């Protein structure tokens, strides 16, 4: 049996961008009925399709609402087709790339940049727990601990909120949890110099950079 993954990807991407959830589910079901394993469907169709959609957003060929809709449809495909198929065959499910706790730090109410990072991480296979805006260091650390996150991602547009970013690192140090999490920062305010002096693991400005950083951090951790 030879599955034409490239063609399937194209039709799957179209269904996501046209916001046709039923069509996306049908495509996924058809692929499985042709003999593909659910893990293959995920790795050869779903993941590359989402990466392509993320790239189109990076080039602004599509906009945030289309990316949100695509992520939601993929969630439905995963829940209704992929995971049940894996479970029925006794498998353990498709793991995420890693878990990220995301927040705009205390004092800052801006959320669009963080929301874009959230979506770009999701479409690239990360599990994201988004705590919203104006979130205290205590809340961020508490959730990261509870969720056993791999990465804490902090955003701020405002220079006067940078001290609240540093509070997260200092709180982790005080609780002897610093080694447990990678802490990355982004938004308009933090510079590379601030990231270095503040003891953060990485810094970036765009949603695409956030994905690259998270992937490389976790690749390093796994090595």
């Amino acid at each position, binding site marked *: 049996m030879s599955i034409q993954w490239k063609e399937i990807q194209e039709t799957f991407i179209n269904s996501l961008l046209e916001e046709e959830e039923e069509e996306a589910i049908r495509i996924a079901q058809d692929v499985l009925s042709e003999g593909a394993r659910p893990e293959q469907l995920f790795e050869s169709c779903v993941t590359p399709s989402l990466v392509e959609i993320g790239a189109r957003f990076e080039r*602004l060929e599509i*906009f*945030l609402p289309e990316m949100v809709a695509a992520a939601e449809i993929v969630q439905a495909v995963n829940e209704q087709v992929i995971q049940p198929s894996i479970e029925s065959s006794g498998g353990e499910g498709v793991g995420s790339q890693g878990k990220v706790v995301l927040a705009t730090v205390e004092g*800052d109410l801006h959320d669009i940049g963080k*929301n874009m990072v959230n979506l770009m991480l999701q479409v690239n296979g990360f599990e994201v727990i988004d705590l919203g*805006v104006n979130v205290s260091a205590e809340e961020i650390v508490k959730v990261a601990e509870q969720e056993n996150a791999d990465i804490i991602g902090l955003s701020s*547009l*405002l*220079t006067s909120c940078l*001290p609240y970013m540093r509070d997260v690192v200092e709180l982790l140090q005080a609780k002897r949890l610093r080694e447990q999490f990678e802490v990355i920062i982004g938004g308009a305010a933090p510079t590379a110099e601030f990231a270095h002096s503040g003891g953060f693991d990485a810094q970036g400005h765009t949603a695409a950079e956030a994905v690259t950083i998270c992937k490389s951090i976790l690749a390093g951790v796994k090595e």
Partner: protein
Amino acid sequence: MTTHKTDFDYFLSVLDKAEKGNYVDENDWDRKHISKPIKALIKKYDISWDKSSVAVPTDDGLADRLFEAGMDLAVNTGVYCIDTHRQMLWTREELDKVLADCPLDVVVGQGKDAVTIYKRSPEEDKRVAVIGGPYGIPVVEEMFYPMTLSYAKETSLDFIENASLLTTHGREIRAKGPYDLVACWQEVDLIFKAIKEAGRPGMGVGGPNSSASAVGVLTTVSHGGFRPSDWNHNSFLSELKVSYEDLLRSAHFFYTGSYCHNFYNPIFGGYAGGGEGTAIATVAGMILMRACLHGDTFNPGTSHAHLSCSTYPEIITSKSLALQALNRNTNLMTSSFSRPTAGPGEKDIFYEVAAMHIAGVTSGVAVAKGVQSATGRFAGHCSPLECRFMADVTHAAEKMTRAQADPIVMKLMDKYRDGQVELKKGMPFNEVYSMETLEPTPEWQGMYEDVVDELIRWGVPI
């Protein structure tokens, strides 16, 4: 002294809307109340233009349809209060009254340094006020005063806007902490010293920019601080959201009878979509800011989702159309704002600034403002020379039509569009200006003169 054109009962009714409106989940707001209706309104009102050939639209019918689309969004979506999770709604009749009550002019500044801002329509040959400054760009303490003084001495600017202090008296500034307040008062001391030194003590000044919280406004727009006649400001969050902080500021400006400039930055590529969608959001946003925050002048600061600039070609065209929609159909006094990707020492900064303001002025803005060089992201990367250039092109464009502006703006966009894939931060203030004379270096001055000459050859009447 400037006073708001609204009565006390109306002022209270706005605050009531934030407390008593429909409860809406914030996750639903962006998609159900912004994205979906905007997509539908683009179709309903047939909002489109040829992006390959139009830089400054000249289609009045399209501008008027866009106004109705924006009003439709304003009436049916309204504003979201992020603290109470309430949808604040106005009827069409209420919004029509709000717009009908708009003043036709407003005075900013005091005494001989006061300047009147006049409502303008597209292609109206009426003077445009110009506000320039380091626009919230972070600056180290020792650089704040000389930089501010150099802007204050720039006679082409009617008002100046402040930078943001990176520290205050050597201390770190933490939003809402006590040093937030100390920084704002330091800003007051330095800017008033600078305008006095420049011989323009009554000039309108914009701040406080060292605090992003309402703390700055509530403390320093008061006795001994910023004056009611200064360039005070307030804003919406994206998309069509307001916070208690914003409502606190609007209440303070109401009670102190202060002039207030309002701004809202729709995100190009965000929940409002592309050029068509952000144009609709812009029209709705300016109307709703007048209704909600009682501003005197209004700025659409549409930002690119990844670059954060306001000079991306499609953004300029979209904003130009939205400004025409507003300036043809209301008495709102609007502005154009340049937030280029390039910084001082880079020639592209001039092309980006010229494209933005020639499009804006011919589309009827009352104020030109900027320049937030290199998107304001790099400490100290700004200079008054790009503001002088902004004033040059602004006053030249007062005499131009949209049809004359269109090919020139397209030519300007062609100069920088391919390179606008990343920020070109250029050089900091102290490398493009002499710290002794506070004048541009010969190299920077020469680059400015080259571009001015180029624009004159293209037919811009500088």
